[in-house]
């Protein structure tokens, strides 16, 4: 085969490889060029975070509006302190909204749901959710039910 044809076919081969990598990045891993700069931070304290971990989902009315950045223990209150990164365009969350830990499906993964309040004021970057509701512990629920409490 002529050298030029070989070169063209090889070039196409390399382009196909790069295209496959781009496909894996964008379509499979959902990597988007969005950076961290267009989010703002809110905090929420929970008695029990259950299975919430960094990169977890934060949703509002079922729509994903952000992600969990970190989960740490608050040394003063001995509660779990969750740092949430919320999309900057969702800047009108009412100040009396509650952060609730929910499970998607019966055995699905847990996520943080923001249940919307009615306040005219909205939460500012760095604010903390006033009311929270911890993860439902299935095991404790069953124990309580079995012992008749």
């Amino acid at each position: 085969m002529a050298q030029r044809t070989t070169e063209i076919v090889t070039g196409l081969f390399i382009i196909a490889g790069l295209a496959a990598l781009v496909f894996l990045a964008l379509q499979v891993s959902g990597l988007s060029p969005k950076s961290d700069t267009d989010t703002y931070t809110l905090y929420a304290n929970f008695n029990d975070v259950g299975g919430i971990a960094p990169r977890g989902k934060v949703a509002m009315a079922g729509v994903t509006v952000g992600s969990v950045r970190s989960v740490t223990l608050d040394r003063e209150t001995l509660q779990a302190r969750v740092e949430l990164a919320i999309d900057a365009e969702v800047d009108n969350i009412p100040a009396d909204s509650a952060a609730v830990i929910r499970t998607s499906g019966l055995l699905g993964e847990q996520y943080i749901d923001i249940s919307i309040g009615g306040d005219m004021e909205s939460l500012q970057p760095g604010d903390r959710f006033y009311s929270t509701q911890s993860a439902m512990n299935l095991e404790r629920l069953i124990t309580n039910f079995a012992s008749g409490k």
Partner: protein
Amino acid sequence: MMDNIAALGRLGLDVIATVGRAGRFLTGVLVGVPRPSVGFPLLVRQLYSVGVLSLAIIVVSGLFIGMVLGLQGYTILSDYGSEAAIGQMIALTLVRELGPVVTALLFAGRAGSALTAEIGLMKATEQLSSMEMMGVDPLRRVIAPRLWAGFIALPILAAIFSMVGIWGGMLVGVEWLGVFEGSFWGNMQASVSFTEDVLNGVFKTVVFGFVCSWIAVFQGYDCVPTSAGISSATTKTVVYSSLAVLGLDFVLTAVMFGDF
């Protein structure tokens, strides 16, 4: 008794000598980079025969492996009513494990054995010695382009394999068995991370590409220059490459995904 101990010692010395030869050979190849004007056309020709010509087997196997994953995953997951997680299962299996490993095994069988046989025949027909007589270094002229071509081609082939496999899984899962397409891609994108999963998979293929091509060209260069020698070198290439890939895969997986 003493004969047996001596035989064991001879075996050990042989192994060490081979490893030493392979190391010196690799240094010779890596140090002797030819001038770009000479080396680049040689590299392109080898990329064509190692990479482009392996494309057919990679695409067909990727498609069927993805389709089988779709079928098996659906059967198991639908017992728990969670067949929407099939996209996540297919993507993670392919990107982390099956993509790199199966591509490397196929590559060793398709391209590695061909490299060994070609170089071995060059040695048996004394083409390599005549090159040396003409003052051309066969390591630079013959071996280096083939080693680099394998090293470059395997990651590309593995990326294509994973992509075709995921597409095949979608074909079975979404088009045939009726999993909702939105949750297929959505679950996949929520659980596959670009750096943790995709880039670690690419890193695996880079390691496999290096090891497979090194074994293939070294076995060819080091073979006994007879018909029987070439045939045993070709067999060794496939066996050693496969074992090295599977062993290294365990080590790399333990380092990348193990929690310790």
